[in-house]
């Protein structure tokens, strides 16, 4: 009698543990952390990162390209071009940081002000005349 009860409990809860285990396996395998949940590899001023790319583009590209970085600087321009929300941070007199906001960043950029100091985290894609950051999130605290 006890043996039958034991078997039935194992059958009942065994299935539950298999389902939970499978769920955890799938979640850890396929869930990819977004930029928001990942700590930046570098935290650097807008002026400094522009200067590094300007002085040695190859070295700066190796260091920063496809890496999550946090950049702090003053807002030069706010743009809605191409139906994207873009914040351009002042770098030096001729170059800037183009920060394309992630669709999951819910901030209303029209509430931001030119010259406002900001911390922006995003994936650095490289340098043309400006440094390009995609999937950006704004640090508000």
């Amino acid at each position, binding site marked *: 009698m006890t043996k039958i009860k034991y078997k039935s409990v194992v059958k009942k809860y065994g299935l539950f543990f298999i389902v939970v285990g499978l769920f955890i396996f799938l979640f850890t395998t396929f869930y*990819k952390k977004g930029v928001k949940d990942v700590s930046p590899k570098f935290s650097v001023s807008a002026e400094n990162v522009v200067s590094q790319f300007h002085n040695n583009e*190859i070295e700066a*590209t190796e260091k920063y390209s496809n890496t999550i970085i946090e950049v702090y600087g003053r807002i030069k321009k706010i743009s809605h071009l191409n139906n994207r929300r873009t914040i351009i941070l002042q770098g030096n007199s001729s170059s*800037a940081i*183009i920060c394309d906001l992630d669709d999951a960043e819910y901030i209303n950029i029209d509430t931001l002000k030119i010259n406002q100091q900001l911390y922006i985290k995003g994936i650095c894609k*490289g340098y*043309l*005349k400006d440094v390009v950051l*995609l999937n950006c999130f704004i640090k508000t605290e």
Partner: protein
Amino acid sequence: MNKLKLLLIFSIFSLGNSVAQQFIARQGQVTFFSYASVENIEAKNNQVLSILDFDKKEIAASMLMRAFVFKKDLMHEHFNDSYIESDLYPKATFEGFLLEGLENAGPQTQLIKGKVTIHGITKDVDIKTTIQKTPESYNLTGEFNLTVNDFNIKIPPILSKNIAKIVLVKFNFQYLPHENN
């Protein structure tokens, strides 16, 4: 070497006293479309740099290949790691010239002749573009086709049905006066 080439391209536009006729687009949009039997692929780059000089009728553009955004992460990964090899060839460039000057304020269609460099390979292209003048800017739009095989992009036979042999490229640039940017 790449930096030297880029400097050369952009120094063309910084010589002489024609600064007033130079216009810059820092957030140009380039989209490519691959229509294939298995799937359609679309990728968009919203941070393309371009400089336009109406005096010299010259135009240059440069874009970061890793800045193309795809609907699926796996497409982005294949594009950069397997096909374009973005670590080796991080940028695509275009250098060309307008066949005619800009004569009136209304929209006009022009032909641009130039050379496009992708994956380290340079090819001649003719691009039909529509130029529209607004009070603050010049807008250039247009489209052209590129043949994947021309750029030594190796696609494994098993995936050949997933990617079109000819890719449609669309562009949209808003140019502002250079000195105000």
